[in-house]
């Protein structure tokens, strides 16, 4: 039992832990509460102590088959069951299945006459009976300190409480003891003195009219733990604690690349787009086309047959769909197919934690491959900047851990440094695209460039970003002696270049013609020469033949003559010479 309840990652820790099953709490405590020991949960009124206790028992009973006892000092079993029914906890059912026992302890000073020495054996008997009747492994005492208001003898109570905690340890049950926060101390009656193994402090603060619940581990003997204040929230799913940054940085890194929906942008990003599961930040001032670019990405995602969750804080779904149609992007079919889901909310509707929780919930339910948050800057208005930044960090972390690509837009205000995101999450971002206005010649044009893109070659060029009725298009800007030219200046420059190009090509054509003509002339000349040569050659050959014929005839004549003289045939070579002499 001990081993199965322990998370494998806490293996090197010798302290056995009891997995609470409460979302996030096991993560920050490194596996749960100390097993077989009491844990003190303190905090002010309405900070969620009772609920944390109830959930600890319910999760234990449902997930880990560990029955639990709830000793209520403030609410009756019926009230308790009613209060947590809205969270989906059916206490009556658990009680019936003997997974849970709830005992309401009523101590009312006005009904009690103290007539001497006493002890709390009755409490021990009731608790012991409840534990034994269902074989409980978990116990919650909520709120034990009520005893101090019901009974006047403090010294008896203190010694009895000390005995109680010792007894709980002996029983081997993992216990949660809740206590009201006192002035300047963790609990009103100094319970932290007796429960020293693990102390959790819950807090409910209102800042800027938005309340946030926080949880801090004050101490945890024999275990490492997160020391920060962790925001948590209570919603219809119970308690969720959010580690600001998950304790590990072990995201899987996919080598798969996905398109941004704009081919030219993909080309700038090493030709293949961004990595799957990476985080992309699109920042820029108002009206530069962040949303349009984001919608392209959504469109591309749906075209791949993947799901996309679009969290919009500025426009309603209908408005977004209409506006995107004007740039030739029809997203409605994707919505109908169930591939694209919009979650539209005013940023001030909830506190940051609720936003994060609702995003978590949507992501869990919809299982998207791409999450777009448009814009993240809105979070600042529902919290302070550092809170928004920590929340974004958790969101990006969360999405990364699930290999979901995140596309975040960031509205930079005019006058701020563009290379700085409002919520300071730039270090978490893998690919950062900057959209900016370029004002020139009485025009405002849009420019896009890649500020960074981890792990891939990317273009260092500014591209002009055009919103056409065919969607987003990127063109190269003209970089000339006068600087960057965009818009009509670029068009003028392009026209000029085009004219020059035409001129050049005509010139080339002309030169090519001339060359051809020259070649033809040359060839003609060659032909004439060849012809002449042929004529000369034939003439000369004729002469040669004539000469040869003459020589033959001469020889023949000499022969004839010699024959007629009947001279020595041997001396016929010499004789002609002699004869000539």
């Amino acid at each position, binding site marked *: 039992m001990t081993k199965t309840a322990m998370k494998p990652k806490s293996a090197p820790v010798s302290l056995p832990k009891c997995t609470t099953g409460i979302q996030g709490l096991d993560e920050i405590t490194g596996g749960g509460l100390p097993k077989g020991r009491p844990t003190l949960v303190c905090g002010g009124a309405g900070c969620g102590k009772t609920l944390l206790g109830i959930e600890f028992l319910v999760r234990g009973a449902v997930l880990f088959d560990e029955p639990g006892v709830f000793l209520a000092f403030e609410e*009756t079993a019926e009230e308790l069951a009613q209060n947590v029914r809205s969270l989906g906890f059916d206490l009556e059912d658990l009680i019936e299945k003997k997974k849970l026992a709830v*005992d*309401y*302890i*009523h*101590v*009312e000073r*006005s*009904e*009690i*006459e*103290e*007539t*001497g*020495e*006493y*002890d*709390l*054996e*009755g*409490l021990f*008997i*009731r608790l*012991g*009976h*409840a534990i034994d009747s269902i074989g409980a492994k978990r116990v919650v005492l909520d709120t034990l300190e009520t*005893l101090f208001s*019901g*009974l006047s003898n403090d010294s008896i109570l203190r010694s009895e409480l000390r005995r109680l905690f010792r007894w709980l340890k002996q029983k081997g049950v993992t216990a949660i003891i809740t206590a009201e926060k006192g002035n300047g101390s963790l609990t009103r009656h100094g319970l932290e003195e007796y429960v020293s193994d693990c102390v959790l402090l819950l807090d409910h603060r209102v800042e800027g009219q938005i309340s946030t619940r926080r949880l801090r581990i004050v101490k945890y003997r024999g275990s490492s733990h997160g020391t920060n204040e962790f925001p948590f929230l209570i919603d219809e799913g119970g308690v969720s604690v959010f580690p600001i940054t998950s304790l590990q940085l072990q995201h899987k890194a996919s080598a798969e690349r996905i398109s941004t929906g704009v081919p030219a942008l993909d080309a700038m990003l090493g030709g293949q787009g961004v990595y799957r599961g990476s985080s992309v930040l699109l920042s820029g001032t108002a009206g530069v086309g962040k949303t349009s670019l984001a919608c392209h990405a959504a469109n591309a995602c749906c075209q791949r047959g993947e799901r996309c969750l679009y969290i919009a804080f500025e426009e309603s779904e209908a408005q977004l769909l209409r506006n995107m149609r004007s740039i030739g992007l029809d997203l409605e079919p994707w919505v109908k197919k169930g591939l694209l889901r919009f979650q539209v909310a005013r940023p001030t509707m909830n506190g940051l934690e609720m936003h994060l929780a609702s995003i978590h919930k949507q992501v869990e339910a919809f299982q998207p491959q791409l999450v777009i948050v448009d814009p993240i800057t809105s979070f600042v208005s529902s919290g302070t900047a550092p809170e928004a930044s920590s929340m974004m960090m958790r969101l990006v972390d969360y999405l990364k851990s699930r290999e979901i690509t995140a596309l975040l837009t960031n509205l930079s205000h005019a006058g701020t440094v563009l290379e700085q995101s409002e919520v300071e999450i730039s270090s978490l971002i893998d690919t950062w695209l900057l959209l900016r206005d370029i004002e020139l010649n009485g025009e405002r044009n849009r420019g896009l460039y890649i500020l960074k893109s981890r792990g891939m070659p990317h273009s260092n060029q500014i591209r002009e970003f055009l919103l056409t009725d065919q969607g987003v298009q990127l063109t190269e800007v003209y970089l000339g002696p006068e600087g960057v030219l965009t818009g009509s200046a670029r068009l003028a420059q392009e026209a000029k270049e085009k004219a020059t190009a035409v001129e050049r090509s005509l010139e080339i054509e002309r030169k090519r013609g001339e060359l051809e003509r020259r070649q033809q002339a040359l060839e003609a000349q060659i032909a004439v020469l060849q012809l002449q040569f042929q004529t000369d050659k034939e003439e000369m050959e004729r002469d040669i033949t004539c000469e040869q014929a003459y020589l033959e005839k001469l020889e023949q004549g000499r022969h004839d003559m010699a024959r007629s003289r009947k001279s020595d045939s041997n001396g016929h070579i010499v004789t002609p010479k002699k004869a000539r002499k």
Partner: protein
Amino acid sequence: MTKDVSRSIEPYSSKSMEARVADRASEFYTLRLYIAGLTPRSTLAVDRIRTICDRYLSGRYDLTVIDLYLHPEAARQAQIVVIPTLVKQTPAPMRLFVGDMTDEKRILRGLNIILEPSESSR
């Protein structure tokens, strides 16, 4: 609040105040004393309460001593936390006395045996 512990208000009758005070002398007391084992404190409490009852409520009381070690479920039913606890079930209102019952004055007052105008209203 559960039914066991809710304090009921004494019903007003048409009788005069004097008559009602007079009635008190004949009221029947149902008492339950919850103890846990025979500890010195428990036996002391049992002895004390018997003495008080015999002296002031002779013949008109019923005292049951319950050992919670033998009947742990009774603790829950009777809302017992502190040991020893004496529960006055009748006459109404129900009252709890905790401790080893050494403070006799308090017990008598709580049982409404010594009448003091300021105390009777509690």
